[in-house]
């Protein structure tokens, strides 16, 4: 029996019916298919904030030379002015030598008024819609630290309410930060003064850090943030409160634009009961060092998770 050459399906198809009509038909399908693909991409035209070539190519923060950084800051100022009509002053503030920040919160004094929450929003140019707030105040019943029992949405007529204490929670700037460990692109890291910062122009928005944080301190921009132009704070810093883009993470950074200038963070300055304490823990005379030295009862939240926060909760009555 002569060996048969196997049937080539392509050739068979070619023989079986590639007339001009079927060629036209196939082309029609291909053409309409391509038209459908093109039409499906129409929503891309609704994009408001298209990445420029400059933004796309921007290097990682730690690799920017001082000249690069000048250009980047100028670019940020231009963009903010274009967007909000206000010319900001954007700086790149470096950590100070011999400084490590710590924060202490007096749970005996906090009345849960939430002024800190909103002062932070105003200082740090956070989106008002969708709403982003770095600080979340929990209304806790007496006798427990189980956050399950906390109320996030309290709208009492008057605070403090009897039988409750109030616990504001924000980024704890941990010594052993899980968010820094898990970020696949090093977009978040801890600086020498203890602040965990984010390079907003490097973050890819995978939200792994948000899943990793045991304090639910990190926030994501689900869409382009909206800030009313008359509420913009023009004193900005690159790693701090400059307006962020859609699709990147942000969080409390101990007001780098203030604290690296030697000033107190916004949340502390507005607290009506003086419950918030901040300073350089390497300075033994700072109020934060004195508190941690003299108060008998102070604690870190979720100590068992091993993050070793730089945020302490203490009591005096």
């Amino acid at each position: 029996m002569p060996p048969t050459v196997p049937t080539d399906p392509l050739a068979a198809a070619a023989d079986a019916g590639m007339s001009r009509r079927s060629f036209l038909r196939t082309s029609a399908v291909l053409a309409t298919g391509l038209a459908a693909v093109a039409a499906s991409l129409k929503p891309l035209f609704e994009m408001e904030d298209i990445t420029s070539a400059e933004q796309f190519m921007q290097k990682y923060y730690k690799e920017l030379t001082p000249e690069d950084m000048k250009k980047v800051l100028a670019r940020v100022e231009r963009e903010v002015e274009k967007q909000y009509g206000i010319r900001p002053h954007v700086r790149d503030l470096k950590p100070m030598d011999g400084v490590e920040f710590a924060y202490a919160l007096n749970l005996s004094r906090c009345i849960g008024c939430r002024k800190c929450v909103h002062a932070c929003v105003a200082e740090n140019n956070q989106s008002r819609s969708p709403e982003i707030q770095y600080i979340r105040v929990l209304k806790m019943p007496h006798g427990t630290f189980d956050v399950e029992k906390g109320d996030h949405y309290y709208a009492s007529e008057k605070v403090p309410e009897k039988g409750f204490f109030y616990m504001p929670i924000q980024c704890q700037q941990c010594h052993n930060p899980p968010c820094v460990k898990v970020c696949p692109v090093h977009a978040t890291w801890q600086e020498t003064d203890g602040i965990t910062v984010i390079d907003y122009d490097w973050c890819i928005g995978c939200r792994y850090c948000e899943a990793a944080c045991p304090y639910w301190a990190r926030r994501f921009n689900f869409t382009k943030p909206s800030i009313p132009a008359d509420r913009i704070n023009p004193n900005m810093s690159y790693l701090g409160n400059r307006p962020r883009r859609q699709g990147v993470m942000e969080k409390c950074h101990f007001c780098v634009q203030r604290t690296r200038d030697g000033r107190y963070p916004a949340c502390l300055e507005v607290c009506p009961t003086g419950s918030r304490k901040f300073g350089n823990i390497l300075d033994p005379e700072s109020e934060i060092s004195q508190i941690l030295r003299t108060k008998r009862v102070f604690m870190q939240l979720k100590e068992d998770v091993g993050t070793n926060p730089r945020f302490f909760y203490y009591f005096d009555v």
Partner: protein
Amino acid sequence: MITAARNYLVFLRRCARIAFVGDWRYYTWMGVLTVVALFGLNAYAKQFAHGLIVTGMSDEVSWGVYIANFTFLVGVAAAAVMMVIPVYIYDNEELHDLVIFGELLAVAAIIMCLMFVTVDLGRPDRFWHLIPGIGQFNFPASMLSWDVIVLNGYLLLNVHICGYLLYSRYRGVKPGKWFYIPFVFVAIFWAVSIHTVTAFLYVGLGGRPFWNSSIVGPRFLASAFTAGPALIILALQVIRRVTHYHITDKALLTLRAIVQVSMLINVFLLVNEVFKEFYSGNLHVISSRYLFLGLHGHHALVPWIWSAITLNLIAMVILVLPLSRSLKYLNVACVLSIVGIWIEKGMGLVIPGFIPTPLGAVVEYTPSLNETLVCFGIWAFGLLCYTIFLRMSVPILQGRLAKANEGISEPGPDDVVEDAPAASHS
């Protein structure tokens, strides 16, 4: 050298052309998949323009169906290796050629995984930040960086193995052992690693006690090795029906044995998990309470998890009984397993990790219409890829698309397929 390159390009061109050739059932299937994929592309364009606000995700539940599907599909991709082990380690002749169908499924699954991860990114235009050397790759600290390496490596491994074997068969030459056998053995270990690394993504988060448990890794593998081979069992029967490629029932029953044992282990691990979570009354199990019983009036996931458990138990019983030797019942068990495990990995693993939040707030999650369309679109695209892979590989394995018949024409419609015996490729 140049001839070799030219021959390869001819081969690729013929493979590409054959993807567009078929009968009306083929065109209908591909047409439907293309339409669904285009709905997905359109939905993604909306998401790209407006951000992830068009999904149902929030700061409280920051990962949703995209990552759930990703997790499930990594398991499917890993499970392709379950066919490789019997063939190469236990010398099972029945499964020889079918290994290629399993590995092609793995390639399609990995493509879908990479797409699901990409659509989940907030700034996909910054993907280059992930490239080692050019971007800032946080290896070895970040488990996501491990995932990037193992998934892309697995993709390359399988593309190489399948590509090499198919091209050798196309040329009618015996494949050189050193060009594929070492890769096959690497692929076996690599398959276990891709799913373990994906499990470690979750396990490594100390702030989420629902995930921070040593059972997550073993459960991932057990459920992957149940759902993956179950999918392959169904896929092989479809291939058999549509292309008349010779696949013995014995091959399917070998896979059945794998699904059976894996499902038993999966259910055993579930029992372990439920006991650990509920017996001691410890407060860290609040997410499990939400999942299985509901919490503070929120119980969106409760019907899902109990359905998944029921489906898995029924599937387990069917698989254990001899009646699952009959393909009718085996297929039912496979479908139940796949659905049950998809729910378990999605709703049963990803979402409860976020509810309640680490600060105790309960915000539930429902995928939005846009999110769902993107998911369907990616699945459709994956099925498109797999269909094209099969459309290219089956004729090659049957010898109908071969170097020998380059340019030779024969009359007759292409899809009346003669029953070509499955040739061994070793």
